[in-house]
């Protein structure tokens, strides 16, 4: 098999995919989280500021999702086909919510009536929360493994995705996004909303920590095989240890009012969680609960070596470009939100 720096192509592509998904989770994570918190703000002015804090960037954040799905389809077509058709309804709901959310953001500010704005506030917030939850729900199902047959076709019940473990991962993901979003907003706001947000940051951090503790216990008791890799390679305990430090650092930086560092810390928390997932799953991507032989791994589900080689070249050129653009846009809009005529 072709390698580059002693790492084979499918593994490289797995790393590229992981990088893009992590980028997506960190970026869209805060704007979904901010959306999920939206109804906690009571005043019209607060809601407008909160909405405009994500105004110039939320659309760009979704670009990472487009690239992520393309990367999955191109590199691991069998995983793409099996997962997307297995979770037909959650994915369809996901698409609806993405569009409904965009509609809500755009429509809200266009008319002044209170009922109009309240209606779109509710749909904006609910769609944001649902999106975060669904992402976690699908991740939770993948962590547990799903019943796929020899050809990679899902054989479970159509409501299979709503199992307790997946729901728990969904709630944890939502909690994580809410914490991440609250920190982003506190970085972007002033005065009363800011005061309210500092409380929200504390509460969401506590909520997220509780979720993670519960989830870890559940995993250790019911899905012990998910911790095999980490047991065999004890140095990997560094990952959860760093995560605990990152979460602790969020609280510390908030107290010191160094919000950018707090935001970086919650981003790091998110990245470490996904790294943990990748480490535990690799080389599998979709574990079959019917027969280990049906499991889709990076090797048996990858595109041809030739195709991967071409795409790795694309990625080496393209992904840094996307990163530069994203940095440029965030840099252009740095600082606290000021409402003006072009605002939502």
């Amino acid at each position, binding site marked *: 098999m072709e390698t580059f720096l002693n790492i084979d192509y499918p593994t490289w592509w797995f790393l590229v995919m992981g990088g893009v998904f992590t980028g997506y989770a960190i970026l869209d994570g805060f704007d979904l989280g901010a959306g999920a918190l939206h109804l906690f703000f009571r005043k019209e002015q607060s809601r407008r500021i909160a909405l405009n804090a994500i105004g110039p960037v939320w659309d760009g954040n979704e*670009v990472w999702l487009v690239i992520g799905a393309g*990367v999955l389809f191109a*590199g691991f077509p069998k995983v793409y086909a099996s997962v997307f058709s297995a979770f037909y309804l959650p994915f369809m709901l996901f698409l609806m919510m993405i569009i409904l959310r965009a509609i809500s953001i*755009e*429509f809200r500010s266009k008319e002044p009536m209170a009922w109009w704005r309240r209606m779109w506030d509710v749909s904006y917030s609910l769609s944001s929360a649902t999106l975060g939850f669904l992402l976690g729900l699908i991740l939770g199902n993948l962590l547990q493994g799903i019943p796929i047959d020899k050809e990679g*076709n899902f054989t479970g019940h159509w409501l299979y995705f709503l199992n307790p473990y997946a729901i728990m991962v969904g709630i944890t993901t939502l909690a994580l996004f809410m914490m991440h979003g609250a920190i982003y907003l506190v970085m972007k706001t002033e005065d009363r909303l800011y005061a309210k947000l500092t409380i929200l940051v504390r509460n969401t951090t506590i909520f997220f920590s509780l979720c993670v503790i519960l989830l870890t216990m559940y995993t250790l008791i019911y899905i012990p095989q998910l911790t095999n890799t980490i047991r065999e390679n004890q140095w990997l305990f560094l990952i959860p240890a760093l995560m605990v430090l990152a979460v602790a650092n969020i609280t510390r930086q908030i107290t010191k009012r160094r919000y950018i560092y707090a935001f970086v810390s919650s981003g790091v928390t998110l990245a470490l969680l996904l790294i943990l997932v990748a480490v535990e799953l690799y080389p599998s991507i979709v574990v079959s609960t019917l027969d280990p032989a049906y499991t889709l791994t990076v090797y048996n589900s990858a595109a041809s070596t030739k195709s991967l080689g071409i*795409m790795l070249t694309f990625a080496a050129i393209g992904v840094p470009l*996307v990163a530069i653009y994203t940095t440029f846009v965030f840099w252009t809009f740095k600082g606290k939100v000021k409402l003006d005529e072009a605002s939502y």
Partner: protein
Amino acid sequence: MDVEILSRIQFAFTIAFHYIYPPLSIGLGLVLVIMEGTYLRTGNKLYEDLTRFFIKIFALIFGIGVATGIVMEFEFGTNWATYSRYVGDVFGSALAAEGIFAFALESGFLGILLFGWNKVSPRVHFFSTVMVFLGSMFSAIWIVVANSWQQTPAGYHIVGEGMEARAEITDFWAMVFNPSSVERILHVWVGAFIAGAFLVLSISAYYLLRHKHVEFAKAAFKIALVVTTASSVLQLFLGHLSAEVVAEHQPAKLAAMEGHFEASAPADMYLFGYIDKEKQRTVGLAIPGGLSFLTHQDFETPITGLNAFKPEDRPGSLNIVFQTYHLMIAIGMFLIALTLFACYLWWKGKLFQQRWLLHLFMWGVILPQLANQAGWFAAETGRQPWVVYGHLRTSDALSKAVTAEQVLSSLIMFAFIYTLLFALFIYLLNKKIQHGPYDKHDFEHNPLQESMAAQLGSK
């Protein structure tokens, strides 16, 4: 209804809805490059105003294009899992190239286009406009390459058998430049130029009819008219090139386009008509031997007809192929006549004096949209029963794990949410058009009379 027909309806519905927007982006992108380029060359403020206004329209269209594009990207996996496994190697790499290069380029520079007016120099801004336009053109390349590969596969070999079979790339460039790629990309690009430029014509005609922003609208109209006229005439030849590729590589599709049944006989070209599938004949007004002449420059050369193919290898919906194909051509011809006539009036110095013509241009924005949609319907229904021509049948390409009930419920959800999305689009587009190119308080940019009127009004 079974899962196949429901999945096909859902895909057709979501892709047709999506395809309202990308052609507008491409065509508007070209017009923006011309407008801003003219501004840089002449320094005339009017052209900056034009650029600023149409960038706002562009952003709206681009946003909806992205949202509906994500749906397409997911649907291959959700509804067409077997297809996704089969073509992953080929289609996936084209889609990844599209995402990484074209789409990222487009969305990246769009930020500068929208928010960068006071942050970058005019030259850098113009460069960004060119990049956004090129990004949208590259997007079209990769998507049409992927689709053309389904029509005329090349540069691959089949690995595995039965349900395990899949296409793997053997020659990337042969895959990219498969026999129909170049002709179809050109055809799609120029169709997009017409759609985007016609939106500018339509908005300008609306302003002119209401005597609003007259100088602005005249300048926009002239630029867009040049683009539309040149593109419409060019499209006649590019369309013919595409048809020749169909004749060579997809004879069953060509036969369905003209309703030609006899296995081997000279074929007529219909101006309009109707296919009677039961009696295996086509009724309508035809030029005898016309299709033979267009394909082989000879009225007598036989053309392979539908009867040369086994019934299960013929396109199922013959009348959809036939009617959409003829609708596309009819609109194309009409647009050539309309734009040439408008250019003649321009030459005579009477372009903006005909109110009926301005009305026609205002409402005519629907025509290139219909033609683009019809063309794709002809191309895709004409490819049936294959999803990958000659290799994978549409009925074999479905997701095995998905049931008809699930697809029906998602189809209903899409119908609901896209109605809402379309309402939003029309609402926002109308709002931007009504607002016009100038802010009310913006005296510097306002034409003199309007700013005087505003000042008088404020006293």
